[in-house]
């Protein structure tokens, strides 16, 4: 070959395999842990708040972990995902076979996941944590609604609107399908399941895994919908004050809702 190859062409194998891997580690693994953590809301405000305390016991390092192991890998996987989507030409109308529908579904759910995750991260996390951003942009348009030290009440508040929880249900199901089906294709890509029999069995197992994760994911939505917000806020404040006293959590009034934050900052 005399032609100059592009960077993508020269490293296509590595890039595709890294994309495949990133779908499982860290992105897929994070998603599963995240959905399970959310589902703990069904054990009550405290269980959920405790998990969030654990995450935030890292202090400022949470940001590093977030970017390094969550945001950047998702961005990597999603951007490449879009490139791959536009390189293929789906043809289910001519070849309406099951695996072909799944090929299309993998791409459609990937795109839904992209927009869902973008919205979800902005709505809950807000990405930029500076006060000026919160006051001038985030609060007026309803971004960055989650407060780590009022975990249950703020998450619940954000999910009270049935349209919002409906969109969340769609987003979660899309992500879970994408993950479960991606697990199956990954097994072929890396050569884990080879024979038709093994591929079929793996397909059933991935379906089962997907169904379980879907139930876990959706149960969190139900759990948040049922939270009594006033009660949760009061309990969270109690937990915060106790935690500060016993030194088990790092004092950071920024991670509280405004009504409690002003109070704590005056202490």
């Amino acid at each position, binding site marked *: *070959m*005399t*032609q100059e*190859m592009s960077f993508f*062409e*020269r490293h*296509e*194998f590595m890039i*595709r*395999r890294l994309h495949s891997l990133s779908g499982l580690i860290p992105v897929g693994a994070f998603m599963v842990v995240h959905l399970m953590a959310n589902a703990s809301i069904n054990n009550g405000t405290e269980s959920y708040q405790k998990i969030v305390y654990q995450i935030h016991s890292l202090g400022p390092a949470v940001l590093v972990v977030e970017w390094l192991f969550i945001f950047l890998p998702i961005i990597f996987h999603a951007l490449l995902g879009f490139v*791959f989507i536009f*390189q*293929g*030409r*789906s*043809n289910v109308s*001519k*070849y309406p*076979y099951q*695996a*072909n529908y*799944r*090929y299309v579904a*993998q791409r459609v759910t990937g795109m839904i996941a992209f927009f869902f995750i973008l919205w979800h991260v902005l709505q809950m996390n807000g990405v930029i944590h500076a006060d000026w951003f919160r006051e001038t942009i985030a609060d007026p348009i309803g971004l960055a609604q989650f407060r780590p030290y009022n975990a249950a009440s703020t998450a619940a508040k954000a999910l009270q609107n049935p349209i919002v929880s409906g969109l969340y249900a769609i987003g979660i199901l899309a992500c879970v399908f994408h993950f479960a089906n991606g697990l*199956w*294709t990954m097994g*072929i*890509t*890396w*050569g*884990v*399941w*080879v*024979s*038709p029999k093994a*591929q079929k069995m793996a397909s059933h197992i991935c379906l089962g895994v997907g169904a379980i994760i879907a139930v876990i994911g959706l149960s969190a939505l139900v759990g948040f919908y049922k939270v009594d917000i006033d009660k949760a806020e009061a309990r969270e404040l109690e937990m915060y004050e106790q935690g500060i006293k016993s030194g088990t959590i790092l004092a950071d009034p920024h991670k509280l809702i405004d009504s409690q934050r002003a109070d704590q900052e005056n202490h």
Partner: protein
Amino acid sequence: MIKDAYDQTISSFTVRIERQDGPGSPSYWETFDVTYESDMNVISVLQRIAAMSETATGEKTTPVAWSCGCLEEVCGSCTMVINGKVRQSCSALVDNLLDGTDQELVLQPMSKFPVVRDLVVDRQRIFRSLQRVEAWVPVDTYYDMGPGPKVSRAQQEINYPLSECMSCGCCMEACPQYTKVEVVRADGESDADYDKRVNEAYDTQFIGPQAISQAMLFNSHPTGAQIAEERLELLSGPGGVQVCGNAQNCVTVCPKEIPLTTSIARAGRAVTVHKFKKWFGKS
């Protein structure tokens, strides 16, 4: 599978054909009326159409071009898209095709290969892909090397189905990851220059399921396996096995029922192992 013959109450049927006068020229549709005879296949329909060279509305037209060879579904040269599905026209029987409610045949050239004329396409990319993965047994000596190693019965049973591939193009036509590459010849360009440009254009594009499967065939051939690692390196080059998106259309449409997705997974595994050996091993 032999279906009940079409219970014929018609004397003729229509055939719509997507035509194209030459490489790069626009395609257009023509409709023909063909007198029904029992046991026709699509090739015999095309023979009638060429003999008539007259459209359904009675206008004279050029004969529709097609290609065929064996007429028994082993050479692959007659592959085209018939009623929306890619298959061999020699084994496509009119009685079965008209079996539905629709009494029309729709013939199109394969969409993933450059059209030469009408239903004839240039399948050079398929053969180029075989070259790209060195899908052959490397023997380049005049000396008598004696008999080759024995192949076990079990291995033969794995290899034989793969060896039935006739490079027809069905699997590539149906693959959503395999997209058309067409290089138009420049004015006054020599064959050598043109071929060089064509190959360059092909060489970074997906090799397709057939070449992956053939690479696996020759990697399990005792003599072919001498260059197994070389083939794996080529298989993971630009346009290699990694481009597969697991839509699995290939295995469904292959007329020879070649276990293409098994070959793809085998290739995936072999390449994974090969890369680990290359990066972490001594070889």
